[in-house]
């Protein structure tokens, strides 16, 4: 049996078994769950070969499976994250209700993502895409809060995307007579002009939803923050990358063949940049770690999409690299939040302070991930961002680069907020009982942190697969070339010189951090928040005076005009308007049988009068 099918079978059978094993015992269930994630990963890393074709042909529409270099690259992200997050999940979900339901959908979405990546035709792509969607939907509504609003919003946006994609798929089929992606790519150049625009745009809408590009992003903040963090790690780290994956194909393989491609590129890039900027501002505003990270994710995805959309070799490289990095560090951060939530029961910055000594490993993971996120050298985020800036400058997108730089800088603010809100500051009696998260949760975080560090130092580890992916879709082989030609490295001469510098910076940083840590520890004076008095007023009992509240107020006031216009409010009121319209039209069914008969007569008259025209 083909290895890809085997993996899929393991996934889907495992999902069902895991769900049903709830009745047997929790331990069995957990083992099954992990096994279902680990076995496919092992199979994948050991057995799947590039460019093999597998056809599941028992369907009228045969499903073609196989791996391309691009999908291999994304599969690395998915499979890796799946295993690590899976371990974390077992820790986090311990003792929770409806584990079977959660595990089932978790595995199904991972399996579906794998399926998406392995799909060589649009139908199987779409099938797995939809399985991924509904499985993640079921997880988004898992905790039962605001189900109708958040869940439906997520699903509707997903459906808009999916159906746009489906429309593109059936149109493609009508044009090429085949569902194969390779036929789409090879036939694309010869289609009529309208279709050459329509189909990529439809596909981009489809992928844009998952990549949370404005204005298709409105589902993301709620969906990310509403799912259990162990899944949000996947959501943000892997699932959103499926959109990126699709976009890469569209931009690389399709839009290069039409003259309007450039315009579409710029539009998408601009939308992504605006997404990045605005969601960064929103992130800053949040007092809840989940929502903060959710907005942060949207912003980061914006960078990635900018890179992919601009589509020069450098930009594409930057986008794909950032995609990997983002998967690593953002998952870690969500895991951190999940760990904090598990141990304290909340994720509100204004309630939690000073966990640094209670949860040191978690803190360490958070610190490293934040450094990576903020794009501070020497970690991976820096490399990616640098390449992005450079590619934008090279391709004369100066306004874009300004915007990206602005939001990147602003990102420092929220990074600080996470670090400070949870871990720094004074320790509260309320949290004195808090302990470090269980090993099952900590270990994956640490492993991911290590990956962050390693990739900052050895980015070429993943540059190679990226290059393979890009050349597969017709880009020139630029492995190592871009690297060497970049301004950053030209300045210092070569990448060999870079490494010691990075290590040096890192070493200094660590030393300072340790120093500060121990110094703070010896000097810490324990007071409660109630001790703070403000301008002589005695605060009342219920007033929360933690200074993490209202962080960055002046800054937020400055950017307020930008943030007041909320797209999702417009969209919601639009949806409400539509529902009101339907509320009105359904009154045609007024309950009076006679009216119905009169409708029938009118219908008859219309047909009689128009009959000759209708039937020719």
């Amino acid at each position, binding site marked *: 049996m083909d290895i890809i099918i085997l993996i899929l079978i393991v996934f889907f059978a495992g999902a069902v078994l895991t769900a049903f094993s709830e009745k047997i015992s929790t331990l069995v269930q957990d083992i099954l769950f992990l096994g279902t994630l680990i076995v496919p990963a092992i199979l994948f890393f050991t057995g799947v070969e590039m460019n093999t074709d597998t056809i599941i042909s028992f369907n009228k529409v045969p499903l073609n499976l196989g791996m391309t270099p691009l999908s291999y690259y994304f599969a690395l992200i998915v499979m890796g994250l799946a295993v690590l997050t899976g371990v974390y999940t077992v820790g986090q979900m311990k003792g929770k209700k409806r584990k079977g339901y959660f595990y089932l959908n978790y595995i199904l979405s991972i399996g579906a993502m794998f399926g998406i990546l392995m799909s060589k035709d649009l139908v199987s792509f779409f099938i797995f895409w939809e399985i991924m969607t509904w499985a993640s939907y079921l997880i988004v509504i898992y905790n039962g809060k605001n189900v109708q609003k958040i869940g439906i919003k997520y699903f509707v946006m997903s459906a808009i995307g999916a159906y746009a994609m489906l429309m593109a798929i059936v149109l493609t089929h009508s044009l090429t007579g085949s569902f194969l992606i390779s036929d789409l790519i090879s036939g694309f150049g010869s289609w009529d002009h309208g279709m050459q625009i329509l189909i990529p745009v439809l596909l981009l809408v489809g992928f844009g939803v998952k990549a949370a590009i404005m204005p298709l992003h409105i589902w993301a903040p709620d969906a990310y923050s509403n799912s259990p963090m162990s899944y949000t790690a996947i959501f943000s780290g892997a699932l959103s990358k499926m959109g990126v994956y699709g976009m890469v194909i569209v931009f690389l393989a399709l839009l290069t063949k039409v003259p309007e491609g450039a315009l579409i590129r710029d539009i998408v890039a601009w939308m992504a940049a605006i997404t990045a900027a605005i969601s960064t501002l929103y992130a800053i505003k949040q007092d809840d770690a989940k929502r903060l990270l959710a907005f942060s994710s949207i912003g980061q995805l914006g960078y990635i999409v900018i890179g992919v959309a601009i589509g020069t070799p450098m930009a594409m490289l930057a986008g794909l690299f950032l995609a990997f990095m983002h998967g690593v560090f953002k998952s870690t951060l969500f895991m951190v939040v999940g760990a904090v939530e598990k141990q304290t029961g909340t994720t509100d910055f204004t309630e939690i302070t000073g966990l640094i000594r209670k949860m040191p490993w978690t803190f360490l993971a958070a610190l490293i991930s934040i450094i990576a996120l903020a794009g501070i050298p020497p970690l991976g985020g820096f490399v990616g961002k640098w390449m992005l800036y450079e590619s934008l400058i090279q391709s004369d997108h100066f306004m874009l680069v300004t915007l990206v730089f602005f939001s990147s800088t602003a990102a420092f603010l929220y990074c600080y907020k996470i670090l400070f809100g949870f871990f720094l500051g004074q320790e509260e009696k309320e949290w004195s009982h808090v302990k470090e998260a269980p090993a099952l949760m900590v270990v994956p975080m640490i492993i991911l942190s290590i990956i962050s560090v390693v990739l900052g130092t050895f980015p070429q580890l993943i540059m190679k697969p990226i290059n393979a992916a890009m050349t597969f879709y017709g880009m020139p082989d630029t492995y190592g070339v871009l690297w060497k030609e970049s301004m950053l490295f030209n300045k210092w001469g070569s990448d060999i010189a870079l490494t010691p510098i990075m290590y040096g910076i890192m070493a200094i940083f660590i030393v300072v951090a340790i120093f500060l840590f121990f110094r703070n520890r010896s000097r810490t004076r324990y007071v409660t928040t109630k001790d703070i008095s403000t301008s002589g007023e005695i605060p009342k009992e219920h007033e929360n005076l933690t200074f993490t509240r209202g962080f960055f107020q002046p800054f937020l006031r400055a950017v307020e005009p930008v943030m007041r216009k909320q797209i999702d409010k417009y969209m919601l009121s639009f949806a409400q308007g539509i529902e009101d319209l339907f509320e009105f039209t359904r009154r045609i069914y007024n309950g009076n049988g006679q009216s119905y008969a009169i409708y*029938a007569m009118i219908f008859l008259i219309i047909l009689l009068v128009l009959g000759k025209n209708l039937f020719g």
Partner: protein
Amino acid sequence: MVGSPVLFVAIPLLAAFIIPLTGMMWKNSVRVIPGLVLAFMFFLSISLMGYVNEHGTIVEVLAGWKPPIGINLVFSPFTGFLTTLMTFLGFIVWLYSYKFKRNVDFEPSMKYFMLLMLLVTGSVGIVLTGDIFNMFVFIEIVSISGYGLTSFYTRRDSAEAAFKFLFMGAIASTFLLIAIMIIYSQLGTLNIADIAEKMPMMDHKLKVLSLVFFILAIGVEAEIFPLNGWAPDVYTEAPGPIGAAFAGIVVKAAIYASVRLVYTMYDFSGAFDLFIIIGLITFIMAETTALRQDRLKRMLAYSSIGQMGLVMIAFGIGTKEGVYAALFLMFNHAIIKSLLFFSGSYLVFNKKNKYIKHVNGMGKYLPITSVLFTIGAFAIIGLPPFAGFWSKLAILTAAADNKMVVLIAVILIISILEAVYYLRVVNRIYFYDKKEKTEPKKPSLNALVAMISLGVIVLVIGFYPDLISGILDRAAADLLDKGNYIKDVLTLNK
């Protein structure tokens, strides 16, 4: 050949006449016999399907008179497919309602099962008959069974629903008769194949007007907008399984009739466009109305109407792919909508008004039923890998092949609404707290078996659509081959 198409009518009628007698001796027989008959019909249709696949269409002559003198029954890949579907569903509906609430009362339960059996028989008759007036008779059999079944619960507002149905049905049958008589006056025959052959001889104006009357008449049963005012009421007030029977059997028969008219009897190409227009309006109106429902069965009813609109659209596309898609949609709709009606009925079982909110939190109390409902909901909105996806893909592909871009867009946009209202229910099932004090009713074993078998079909077809795609292909080809139909009937390929 094992059996013959006439048994589809003869055996149920014989049973219907026997049941009152056996009921006097053995009360349970009034429930058992209809079940046996429905099962027999199902197996008969399967065995005939096997025969038809090998030897081609069966044309059964009645009373020894060859067409066009006598009435004939046509069991072809197309009609056979529909017959199989209907009889299967009929049996499942019977199975589901075997332990019916009113079974304590002998008389009502006898009437229920008898009417159900005849509803199926009538629908099968509509599909099999090769005679237009005979089709009228079967339509009336279906209608009257429908009136009786709708008004089954005397405490509900069922009489209101049944009256509306009857009102529309009576007007419809009037115009059906007029249409038939116009055709007869011009062609002197009632045999569909004969009519099809002679149709070019008919005056064009009369041709158009008779088709208009046909459309009005059959449109009522086919639930097209604006003739479907009765339908949501009937679905709401009839016993749950009957909603399934309507959606899965009766409407199918009506759609068959309209398709037979347009594909076989008449020779207008414009009629196909009319199909698309009517189907589209029906689809849009029904799905948007469904979005705003607060009663579960009513929502399912509008959804069902919408699906039928989609079927009409698919038939209107007119190509083989279109017909294939339409048949696939019909199959899926029959199975899935029945599943939804079945499981939905239990989710709101003991509630008076059957509001959607009554399903709140049922996931905990009725886990299997809830899962089945969820599977049904996912399938009907066309999520892969459930069965509904394949039919949706088929219709979209068929539309795309004809460059109907706007049509595709509209279908997909409306599908989003469909997804919304189904998910709202699913969300309520799993994530809301149950507020009502009344104990949810656990489905009886027979109901559970019926529901699960439907659920299994949904999943199996979802993963393995080839199971029926061959049958659908042959059926589509059969429908499109008008000349062959005429030849089969008039030269008696037996």
